[in-house]
């Protein structure tokens, strides 16, 4: 371990030594009209054919031999700025970029973040600009970031209406979803029909499917990193929209002109959504609140305060009440030590809460996960060839499996707090980007992660440490009876894990437009989602690793070929991924309000492999992409000994979200200045399903018997969605500006099955197979405005 750290330190020093007589050009790039910092702006030193990009806070720094240079700042959709710089000493140059458009006939979509960089070793990353996402037709017209992501190769979900998303065959709980660096524990509203992100509040997002940099940790499959906007530092303005499902309104403006800004936005669906046929006592709705304050304290210090609060609320006839959602607050402080050292310190509090009230059982149930996360990240812009990042991260978790409280004086429920669990997760990393030669760039990093399961009340003790037994006579798994319990203080550690997570990517540029890349990553995931349904549900809770549960260990290798041809780019990647200690559940396991989940768990493994292709057209009147994924995602849980069968007889079975073929075509055509047309077409292998192979009757109940798990498939899914965006006054840049988005989901009304259920027809008493499809053709209109 020490050797590796020393080696990387030496490498840096070696690079630093190799140059002398150098000076640093640095600064922050902002958008001229709003003062919003801009990410991923290209900063090119024309003479040296080298350059850099701005970081997530709009900052750039590049150290060069002294001399006179032409520096080009470019970002698609913005006018390119060229500056002559005489670099004899350090130069600080802040840039403000103006939007293109007025003079041009073609309105270019701000798609720069999506443009392919062939030189960077970073691979397996998809970026989508919020402008692109807003033009993608979606069901009921509600712009949906997660649904947009599923149009990209390697990203899928467990079917229409399923919560979460799956990246390269990984499970939904294996995605790290960050909103302004805060971890979200659920990305959906209304069980997966909508995502929690208000599009107006989002600046940018990046999805890492592989080659995940060392600064991220804690989830084995992917990182979805989303940035909220800072707010307009120049003028007060508003943005909003009225749709069929929800309406949104967002205000932003300067607190101190050019120095400090605020942003506050809300979105709410209409109560009684989906319930027009029922009487008025029923409610089902969701809302989100986003708020952000940002302050430029001085040249070298910036402070950001951001927060989110979202809830889903259900109330069915006062019989069933249900409220759940995410919230977070964070404070971030950017500090520039000097032009070469950029730092960010964050303190983040986030929580996921689930509340349930059942009137007829007379109880309320409250559960959740809370964490406090402190991070410190340092970037060292060593020179134009080397960039180093270092950081530490410490997360304290409280897992509350639930408190059950009687809701009436006559209730038969005992007040009970299920045993809370505590843990402390730490990470420390070093990560470097090195331009080894003109052709070879590498990104090498190492993360050391640790997880301490802290003391708690009443940890169960089992004979031989076996919480789950196998009854060989009856051939069933049975929970072991605890032989005692152990209580300890939270300052003690019950079990600790320390792991090394190497990350490595390399890019070889064949020429300016062509490269091949390869990457390897290892990531440990210390918290597990306890869920035995195909897609996550709000009931599901995270459980920490500890005495009985080992962390998930994910390894992934990927290799790819990347090429830019004029306005087009081609990306092809192949990947192979394995996950150890993937949990599975014994048959009939009851996961809800279970105080001893170790009694129903078996550890297995998962693997996924595939080939992804993305052909993209980034410029011109017609833009869009064709994405194709050929992949397989499987899981198996063998018995712990030769005498046990495990789950599904220990055989591999397809994951619920496994889709062999997945093709999407997304296109946007700029007809004229007033009309933009969008379309996407999806063609996918149907999801795995388990067919019955018989039936019997027991105690008046009809019981189907099943084939091997997930051994059949639902019919193929295909669908065409259309949209048209109408901007009545495209030249209007001040005052009230508006546009209409008309959309048609499932345009040819294909009845795609989300499930086939097997049961008895109530009238004929005959068994039958019933196909369920959720959305037929759904027209929608949304009115968007800003002022």
């Amino acid at each position: 371990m020490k050797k590796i750290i020393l080696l990387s330190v030496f490498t840096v020093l070696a690079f630093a030594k190799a140059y002398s007589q150098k000076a640093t050009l640095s600064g922050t790039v902002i958008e001229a009209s709003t003062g919003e910092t801009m990410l991923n702006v290209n900063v090119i030193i024309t003479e040296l054919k080298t350059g850099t990009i701005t970081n997530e806070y709009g900052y750039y720094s590049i150290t060069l031999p002294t001399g006179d240079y032409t520096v080009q700042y470019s970002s698609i959709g913005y006018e390119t700025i060229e500056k002559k710089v005489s670099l004899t000493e350090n130069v600080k140059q802040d840039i403000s970029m103006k939007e293109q458009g007025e003079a041009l006939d073609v309105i270019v979509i701000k798609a720069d973040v999506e443009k392919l960089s062939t030189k960077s070793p970073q691979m397996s990353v998809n970026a989508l600009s919020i402008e692109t996402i807003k033009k993608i037709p979606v069901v009921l017209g509600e712009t949906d970031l997660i649904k947009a992501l599923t149009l990209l190769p390697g990203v899928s979900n467990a079917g229409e209406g399923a919560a979460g998303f799956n990246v390269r065959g990984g499970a939904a709980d294996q995605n790290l979803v960050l909103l302004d660096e805060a971890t979200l524990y659920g990305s959906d509203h209304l069980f997966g029909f909508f995502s929690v992100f208000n599009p107006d509040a989002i600046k940018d997002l990046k999805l890492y499917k592989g080659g995940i940099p060392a600064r991220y940790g804690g989830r084995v499959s992917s990182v979805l990193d989303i940035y909220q906007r800072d707010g307009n530092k120049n003028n007060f303005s508003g943005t909003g929209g009225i749709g069929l499902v929800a309406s949104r309104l967002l205000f932003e403006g300067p607190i101190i002109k050019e120095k400090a800004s605020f942003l506050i936005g809300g979105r709410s669906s209409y109560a009684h959504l989906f319930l027009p046929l029922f009487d008025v006592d029923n409610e089902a709705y969701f809302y989100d609140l986003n708020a952000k304050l940002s302050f430029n304290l001085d040249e070298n210090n910036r402070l950001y305060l951001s927060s989110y609060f979202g809830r889903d609320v259900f109330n069915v006839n006062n019989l069933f009440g249900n409220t759940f959602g995410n919230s977070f607050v964070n404070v971030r402080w950017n500090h520039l030590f000097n032009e070469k050292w950029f730092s960010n310190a964050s303190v983040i509090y986030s929580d996921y809460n689930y509340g349930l009230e059942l009137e007829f059982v007379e109880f309320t149930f409250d559960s959740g996960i809370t964490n406090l996360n402190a991070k410190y990240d340092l970037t060292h812009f060593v020179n134009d060839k080397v960039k180093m990042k270092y950081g530490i991260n410490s997360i304290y978790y409280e897992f509350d499996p639930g408190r059950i409280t009687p809701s009436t004086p006559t209730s038969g429920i005992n007040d009970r707090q299920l045993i809370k669990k505590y843990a402390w997760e730490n990470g420390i990393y070093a990560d470097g980007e090195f331009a080894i030669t003109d052709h070879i760039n590498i990104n090498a990093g190492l993360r050391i992660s640790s997880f301490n399961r802290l003391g708690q009340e009443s940890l169960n003790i089992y004979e031989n440490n076996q919480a789950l037994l196998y009854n060989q006579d009856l051939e069933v798994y049975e929970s072991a009876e605890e032989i005692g319990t152990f209580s300890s203080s939270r300052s003690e550690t019950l079990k600790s894990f320390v792991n090394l997570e190497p990350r490595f990517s390399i890019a070889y540029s064949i020429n300016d437009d062509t490269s091949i890349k390869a990457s390897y990553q290892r990531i440990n995931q210390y918290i597990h989602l306890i869920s035995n349904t195909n897609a996550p549900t709000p009931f599901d809770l995270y459980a920490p690793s500890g005495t009985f549960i080992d962390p998930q260990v994910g390894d992934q290798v990927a290799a790819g070929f990347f090429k830019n041809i004029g306005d087009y780019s081609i990306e092809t990647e192949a990947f192979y991924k394995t996950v150890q200690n993937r949990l599975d559940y014994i048959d009939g396991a009851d996961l809800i309000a279970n105080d001893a989940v170790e009694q129903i768990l078996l550890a297995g493994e998962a693997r996924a492999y595939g080939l992804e292709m993305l052909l993209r057209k980034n410029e011109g009147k017609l833009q869009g992409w064709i994405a194709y994924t050929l992949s397989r995602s499987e899981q198996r849980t063998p018995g712990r000994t030769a005498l046990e069968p495990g789950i599904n007889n220990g055989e591999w079975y397809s994951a619920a979200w496994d889709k062999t073929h997945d093709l999407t075509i997304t296109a946007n055509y700029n007809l004229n200045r007033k009309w933009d047309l969008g379309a996407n077409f999806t063609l996918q292998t149907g999801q795995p399903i388990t067919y019955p192979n018989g039936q019997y009757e027991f105690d008046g109940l009809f019981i189907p018997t099943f084939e091997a798990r997930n051994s059949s498939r639902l019919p193929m899914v295909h669908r065409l969605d259309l949209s048209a965006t109408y901007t009545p006054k495209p030249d209007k840049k001040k005052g009230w500006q508006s546009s209409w988005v008309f959309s048609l989901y499932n345009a040819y009304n294909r009845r795609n099955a989300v499930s086939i259920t097997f049961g008895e027809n109530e009238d004929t008493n005959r068994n039958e197979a019933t196909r369920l499809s959720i959305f037929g053709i759904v027209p929608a209109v949304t009115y968007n405005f800003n002022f």
Partner: protein
Amino acid sequence: MKKYFIYILGLFLIASCSDVIELDLNNSDPRLVIDAAMERNEMGTTSTIIKLTRSAGFYDEDLVFVDDATITITDNDTGQIIPINFVADGVYESNFPFIRSTDPTAVSYTLNIDDNGDVYTATEVFQQTVPLIDVEQQTISGFGDDITEITAFFNDPSGQGNFYLFEYNDDENDQVDIGDDEFTDGNRSQTTFFIEELEPGTVANIRIMGINQRCFNFYETLLQQADGGGGGPFAVQPAVVRGNIINTTDAEKFPFGYFRISEVFETEYTIE
């Protein structure tokens, strides 16, 4: 918990549609299905009823009765072997007073079924329970057809870890529910049935039966499977539901079903 969930799911299905499709399915080999219960009621009478059928193809309509098996139950205290006699349509019955009045839980009983050379056995002990003390009725509207909520109450003995099997029967409906006292230990507890289109004047029979944890787990898995499979985001993984009966001749040909010995209390309730 799942049934509450189904309500929520129902809300979304407004926008959805379902249709019956033709689907060819494979058929697995038939297995013996054993529904065996020895029950003692509050009068102290023991009755033993065993139903033998065979599992069939998914679309098969008629139940396959097993009428030619030889069934006995052994009192493992006295060694006495009592035959259970065939009645009709796969049903075997006995009124032999197996369960004694003093210390009834001290004795185990072994079920023995010989089905053409395949021998199936299971051994169980008597599980006590408590009487139902009250029944309440409430109507839930707002879901199209009115649903009648029937709640039966009982006093859970404290500190024991009790498991219950409940049955609701009227001329039109049969429902099964299970319960444990994990969250209600020592309290006035309840079981709730939801029944559609229930006419006032209907006479319902509600039963409470004592079971052990293994039987509770069996029913829990069984009820999950009865609800489902079939994919979709909320689908629970399909499973083979294994009970407490073993095929001692050929373990591969394991049976479906369960053998339980329960104390039972019942109450009649007329729907208002």
